């Protein structure tokens, strides 16, 4: 009984079952895993029934029929597997037809007309084919062709790793199926004997081999996990069996004698089984943790890693922090030696972050561009430029980070510290993480760019401010040069003016002999003009002093009545020449000398009177000086052209001249009133101004009046002339 052939068939069948177990344990809830498990069990069943048909000759006919049944079902599940792996290709309706056909053939194989009888030979059982036998052949052809067509479609649509996986499984199946079809279906038909049919059992090895290759090399299923789980189950079963055994032995020794009540015995055993049922799960967990530690020293919980990841992405907004923390978390959790994040912006490398030992060479942008597909695992590439590139740079996995709209960058991972290949758990986790990371990086990038923009903006504002500052400085220099020029020119003008004015005054005083009335009149006009020019130059000098900050009020006791009388006397010639009355009304009481800036105030008074005469065509100019309490008030009232309403606001600003004033006096500087305001206000006073255009104006000031005690000689001297 225990022949070599039996042992080998048993081994092949066990391998097949084991393969199914691996698939099932890997993910018991996934449909493809279940289908694959069933497929394995059925191939094993086929191997066994095929053997038994030859060797259990007393039931030869039954085993032969069972062999055909198993083969039919193997074909069915292969078809289902291809249709569902990696994802569903066709709908349920299509599958239903497959089920219907299989059900029919399952019945057909047991009908007497299919295999009426078997021909028992010493070493084998030959099948005598009946009338229905060709139906089975048709069935095989339909399923093989369909499977082939589906497989081709699956390979065509499949991508990367999934395609590799199905490729090996389908290839294994077809080779096995063809070999079996040749030995067990076609050759018997052609040669009329079943000499080679026993080989059919062994041909399932081809399928097993290819599938195993796909599992190990292409990660079809996670073998390590399956082994760990199997070991866990095995241990728990052994442990429980031992415990149970010991318990039963102990109980029977202690409580159960020969005359024990059978009801009591049953109760004890029932109790034990209840205890067993409740201890199973906790024990299983304990053992699984143990086996996980043994088989998975790199074990991690995907959920924990994902939750840590989410925490980082939620808590961080800074791009550099996100990159640093995520690559660190990822590499540490998955026990990866080297990790790199390369983030792009406008097709250029924007940020790079590393973890761990840097490889000898880092990839440059054009190299990275060749990796532009969602995920590349170097171990799954059979060759080519990409594989070469990744190998050269020590990269095992490359993920392209992108959102639906935008390309973000690359996540490159090196070897695992253990040297193992990346497990399917790793791959799944990486795929989830890469999507989250892409979104988070894109947001952080936008945020960082806003920050950068703010910085640039600040820099630009600073730059512009500096330029303005420099321009301002330059303008100040220019202004200073202008003031210096005015000052210099004015001083130079004063020298010839001194002689003109001086000699004219001497002529008028009779120093050159008696003048005719006409000569006196003309010389008087010339003198008056020279006087005005002197004042004009003083104005210019004062303005340039004002801008240069060298305009200072220097007070001294001044007899204001004498000062104003003096100015009125000097301008009387001008007034009478225009046939305008010029009247000075001094205060009724005696005005003590006031502490004011004599020169500057004198110029203000002169300016007011001179203007009044100039802008009045007929009538009079009245100069009124009054003192009331601690104020002294001067008003110069004229009946002249007046100030237009719109000019009033700007009248006291530098170089401003009202339109009507420009017509009357084109050579005015627009400085007189500007200076007057400064002189008055710098002495703590206020300007008096009101005017009606066409009727006349009143200009004047109100100064604080402080009687001065000691009178200096010069002021005194002036009051005497």
């Amino acid at each position, binding site marked *: 009984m225990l022949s070599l052939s039996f042992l080998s068939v048993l081994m092949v069948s066990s391998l097949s079952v084991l393969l199914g177990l691996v698939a099932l344990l890997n993910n018991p809830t996934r449909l493809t895993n279940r289908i694959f498990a069933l497929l394995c069990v059925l191939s094993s069943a086929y191997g066994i029934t095929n053997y038994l048909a030859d060797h259990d000759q007393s039931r030869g006919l039954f085993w032969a029929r069972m062999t055909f049944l198993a083969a039919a079902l193997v074909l069915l599940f292969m078809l289902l597997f291809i249709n569902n792996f990696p994802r569903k290709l066709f709908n349920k309706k299509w599958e239903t037809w497959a089920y219907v056909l299989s059900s029919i053939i399952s019945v057909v194989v047991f009908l007497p007309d299919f295999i009426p009888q078997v021909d028992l030979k010493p070493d084998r059982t030959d099948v005598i084919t009946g009338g229905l036998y060709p139906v089975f052949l048709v069935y095989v052809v339909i399923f093989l062709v369909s499977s082939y067509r589906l497989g081709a479609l699956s390979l065509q649509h499949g991508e990367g790793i999934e395609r590799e996986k199905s490729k090996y499984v389908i290839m294994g199946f077809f080779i096995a199926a063809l070999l079996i079809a040749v030995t067990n279906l076609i050759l018997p038909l052609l040669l009329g004997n079943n000499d080679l049919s026993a080989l059919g059992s062994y041909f399932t090895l081809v399928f097993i081999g290819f599938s195993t290759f796909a599992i190990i090399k292409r990660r079809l299923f996670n073998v390590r996990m399956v082994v760990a789980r199997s070991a866990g189950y095995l241990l728990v079963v052994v442990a429980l069996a031992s415990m149970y055994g010991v318990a039963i032995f102990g109980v029977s020794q202690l409580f159960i004698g020969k005359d024990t009540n059978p009801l009591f015995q049953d109760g004890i055993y029932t109790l034990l089984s209840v205890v067993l049922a409740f201890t199973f799960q906790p024990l299983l967990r304990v053992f699984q943790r143990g086996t996980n530690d043994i088989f998975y020293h790199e074990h991690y919980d995907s959920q924990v890693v994902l939750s840590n990841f989410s925490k980082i992405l939620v808590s961080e907004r800074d791009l550099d922090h996100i990159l640093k923390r995520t690559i660190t978390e990822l590499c540490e959790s998955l026990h990866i030696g080297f990790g790199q994040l390369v983030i792009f912006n406008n097709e250029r490398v924007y940020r790079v972050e590393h973890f761990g030992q840097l490889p000898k060479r880092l990839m440059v942008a054009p190299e990275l561009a060749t990796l532009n597909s969602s995920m590349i695992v170097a171990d799954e590439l059979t060759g080519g430029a990409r594989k070469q590139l990744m190998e050269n740079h020590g990269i095992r996995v490359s993920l392209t980070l992108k959102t639906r709209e935008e390309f973000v960058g690359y996540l490159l991972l090196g070897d695992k510290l253990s040297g193992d290949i990346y497990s399917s758990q790793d791959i799944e986790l990486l795929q989830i993480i890469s999507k989250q990371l892409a979104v988070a990086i894109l947001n952080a990038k936008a945020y960082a760019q806003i920050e950068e923009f703010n910085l640039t903006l600040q820099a630009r504002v600073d730059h512009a401010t500096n330029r303005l500052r420099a321009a301002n400085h330059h303008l100040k220099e220019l202004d200073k040069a202008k003031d210096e020029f005015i000052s210099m020119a004015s001083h130079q003008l004063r020298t010839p003016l001194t002689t003109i004015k001086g*000699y004219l*005054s*001497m002529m008028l005083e009779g120093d*050159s*002999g008696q003048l005719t009335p006409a000569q006196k009149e003309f010389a008087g006009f010339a003198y008056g003009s020279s006087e005005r020019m002197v004042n004009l130059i003083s104005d210019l000098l004062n303005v340039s002093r004002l801008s240069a900050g060298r305009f200072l009020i220097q007070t001294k006791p001044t007899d204001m009545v004498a000062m104003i009388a003096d100015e009125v006397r000097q301008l009387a010639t001008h007034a009478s020449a225009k046939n305008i009355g010029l009247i000075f009304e001094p205060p009724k009481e005696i005005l003590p000398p006031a502490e004011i800036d004599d020169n500057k105030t004198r110029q203000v008074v002169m300016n007011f009177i001179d203007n009044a005469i100039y802008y009045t065509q007929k009538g009079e100019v009245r100069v009124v000086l009054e003192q009331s309490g601690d104020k002294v008030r001067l008003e110069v009232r004229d009946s002249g052209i007046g100030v237009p309403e719109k000019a009033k606001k700007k009248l006291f600003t530098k170089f401003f001249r009202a339109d009507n004033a420009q017509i009357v006096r084109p050579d005015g500087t627009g400085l007189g009133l500007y200076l007057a305001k400064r002189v008055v206000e710098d002495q703590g006073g206020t300007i008096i101004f009101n005017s009606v255009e066409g009727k006349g104006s009143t200009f004047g000031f109100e100064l604080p009046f402080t009687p001065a005690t000691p009178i200096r000689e010069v002021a005194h*001297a002036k009051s*005497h002339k």
Partner: protein
Amino acid sequence: MPSPTNNAPVSTPTAAPVPAAVAPAAAADTDIKTILIAEDDPFISRMYQIKLESAGFRVILKTNGRDAFEGIKAEHPNLAVLDINMPELTGLEVLSALQNDGFDFSQMPVIVLTNSSELADRNTAHSYGAEYLVKAELTPREVLNIISEKLGLAAA
């Protein structure tokens, strides 16, 4: 300083004949006051000379600061009128040199008569006890009046 040219309406002034209109100084000469004028513009100095001499003053004209300094020390004028912008020494430098020389300013009033109206110059002049006046703002008569005041004489 502009120098006189042939085109000038007034011929180059000379120190020579005093115009006829001006009355000669009083005969008893001990009371005649001497005024030193330091001024590099001949038109201006001539103008003051005429006015002062007509009022009976003796006038010494100097055209630069160095001569003015020497003149004051040698001839002991009763009053000095100094321009600021002059060759050799400015009027203010003359004052400084005199002070360094131990000159007693209380014996001789000084008038700084200039066309510069810089505040600093004004303050410097005041620090020597000198009067500070702007030429263009005054007529020769007004200058004469101020000089008379300084010398304690009645205004002319």
